[in-house]
């Protein structure tokens, strides 16, 4: 019999109590797991968007809460293009509009020449062709949305109350773009009553230009006006919402540790109390204090590990359920990175440690004699 077997056997003495304790932690773990995989999914969405084209970085408006609110004057794209070290810069407008029965459909307004002649946008037309220049009622549909909405070339589609004809199907590799559509820049500006405005600028630098120096120079030239986004780590410059979810996740993690820890502590104190005599026997047959501590901590750690496993399993289930809602699955692809599992396991182990410390200390302080006398 190994020490681990002993720990395991002890845990299953009172199955219901152990199960309830595990469940108490599991609820926290599920929440953490679900929220984390949603933020990771959002981050992935941004990463794909950033990596979709051949742009080296993007420029958005400074000090905004969400990229969708970013508003820059169209002239800025021209100004940026003339900055030294910039090869090309194109402005695009991006927005979310309701379509048919979906409330969230990403539409990007972009100039036809940019789609057809440059690689900066990363748009690949896999069927049909791009909309005509400044066409008022033509649309290039992403391949995921084409499939979801069951639309083909020549079909009609109603977007924010306006009818469009599908001229082509596109692919960029970004869920948001492939699950959305492209229109002519002018058309979308007019629809949004944002003539002369764009959401962001996609920039391709000269081959020999230093990206850090270049982005810094741009930000210095337009302080409090423009921000540059080179990588996913800088996305919080234009998306405070994700920061908020991140903060929430951490707060919940902390709460889960505290609440779960109290639950584990309660269970373990009870269990130590019930086994007072037995602990006395173990000490009498020569077990050192340290081994008693290992036993109790081992038990509470194991509760944590089991909770992590159950939490990850149920968390995956909860996410699957959320994904059944088409409005959500259209723009969110949950991510189960190793990071999330590590976080769930980390929290669960902390809960085990946190909850087991005091009971283990108590158990180790029991005098063998008093414990043996205990009825």
């Amino acid at each position: 019999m190994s020490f681990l077997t002993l720990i395991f056997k002890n845990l299953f003495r009172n199955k219901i109590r152990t199960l309830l304790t595990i469940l108490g932690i599991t609820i926290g773990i599920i929440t953490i797991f679900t929220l984390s995989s949603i933020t990771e999914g959002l981050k992935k969405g941004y990463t794909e968007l950033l990596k979709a084209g051949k742009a080296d970085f993007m420029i958005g408006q400074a000090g905004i809460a969400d990229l969708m609110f970013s508003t820059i004057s169209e002239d800025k794209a021209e100004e940026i293009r003339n900055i030294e070290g910039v090869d090309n810069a194109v402005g695009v407008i991006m927005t979310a509009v309701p379509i048919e029965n979906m409330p969230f459909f990403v539409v990007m307004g972009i100039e036809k020449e940019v789609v057809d002649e440059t690689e900066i946008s990363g748009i690949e037309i896999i069927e049909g062709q791009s909309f005509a220049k400044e066409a008022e009622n033509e649309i290039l549909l992403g391949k995921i949305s084409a499939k979801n909405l069951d639309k083909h070339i020549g079909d009609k589609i109603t977007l924010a109350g306006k009818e469009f004809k599908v001229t082509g199907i596109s692919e960029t590799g970004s869920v948001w773009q492939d699950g959305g559509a492209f229109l002519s820049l002018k058309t979308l500006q007019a629809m949004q009553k944002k003539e002369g405005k764009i959401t962001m600028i996609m920039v391709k630098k000269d081959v020999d230009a230093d990206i850090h120096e270049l982005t810094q120079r741009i930000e210095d030239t337009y302080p409090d006006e423009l921000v540059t986004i080179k990588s996913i780590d800088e996305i919080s410059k234009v998306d405070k919402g994700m920061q908020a979810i991140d903060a929430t996740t951490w707060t919940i993690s902390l709460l889960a540790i505290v609440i779960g820890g109290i639950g584990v502590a309660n269970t373990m104190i009870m269990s130590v109390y019930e086994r007072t005599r037995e602990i006395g026997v173990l000490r009498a047959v020569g077990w050192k204090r340290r081994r008693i501590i290992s036993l109790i901590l081992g038990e509470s750690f194991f509760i944590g590990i089991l909770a992590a496993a159950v939490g990850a399993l149920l968390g995956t289930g909860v996410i699957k359920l959320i994904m059944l809602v088409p409005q959500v699955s259209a723009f969110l692809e949950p991510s189960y990175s190793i990071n999330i599992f590590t976080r769930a396991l980390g929290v669960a182990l902390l809960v085990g440690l946190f909850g087991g410390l005091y009971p283990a200390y108590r158990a180790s302080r029991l005098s063998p004699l008093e414990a043996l006398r205990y009825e």
Partner: protein
Amino acid sequence: MNNIIEAKNLVKTYEQGRVRALDDLNLEVRRGEFVAIQGPSGSGKSTLLHMIGALDRPTSGEIFVCGMDLTKVKNLDEFRSKKIGFVFQLHNLIPTLTALENVLIPMFELKLKKKEKINKAKELLKLIGLEKRLNYIPPKLSGGERERVAIARSLANDPEIILADEPTGNVDSKTGEKIICLLRDVNKKKGTTLVVVTHDSVIAEHAPRVLKLVDGKIV
């Protein structure tokens, strides 16, 4: 030193000195001896065993066990784990573990291979005649069988001394005699020093030397 246990003017008081459980007690036990300690309830028999087994420290006096001054030994856990085997009045087995696993419990502190430990535990259970009950948990064993498992457990760490506190307290007289004979066999075969506390004269008669304890003194 031929004496494996030597106590001089041993005093143990409780309740700030109001209870004198051991009162100037002197005791010498030779290596390999089998001693029974008899005495009325409350005379200090258990207290004396706890002093010898290093479960507690005396209030004053000297106590040497296996050549060690127990008033000075720092790590009593280690001392117990190496030198002492306990058999308690209530068998005190772990109810969820099998007979075999219960015997393995003291071996956690030993540096033996897993296989060796298991073989040894099996051997001990065979010695006490329970080789057919290896995988029984205590609730499925009779009172006498449990007490025998407790004896096997007390032998698990190859102790120099076995201290048994009323090992026959909870079984009928016939089973009680079987148990005491078993302990006597262990004493003979292995040469383990044996100190058995009992208030039963029939049981005590099996021991070559019987000590009487009254009011914390040997008389």
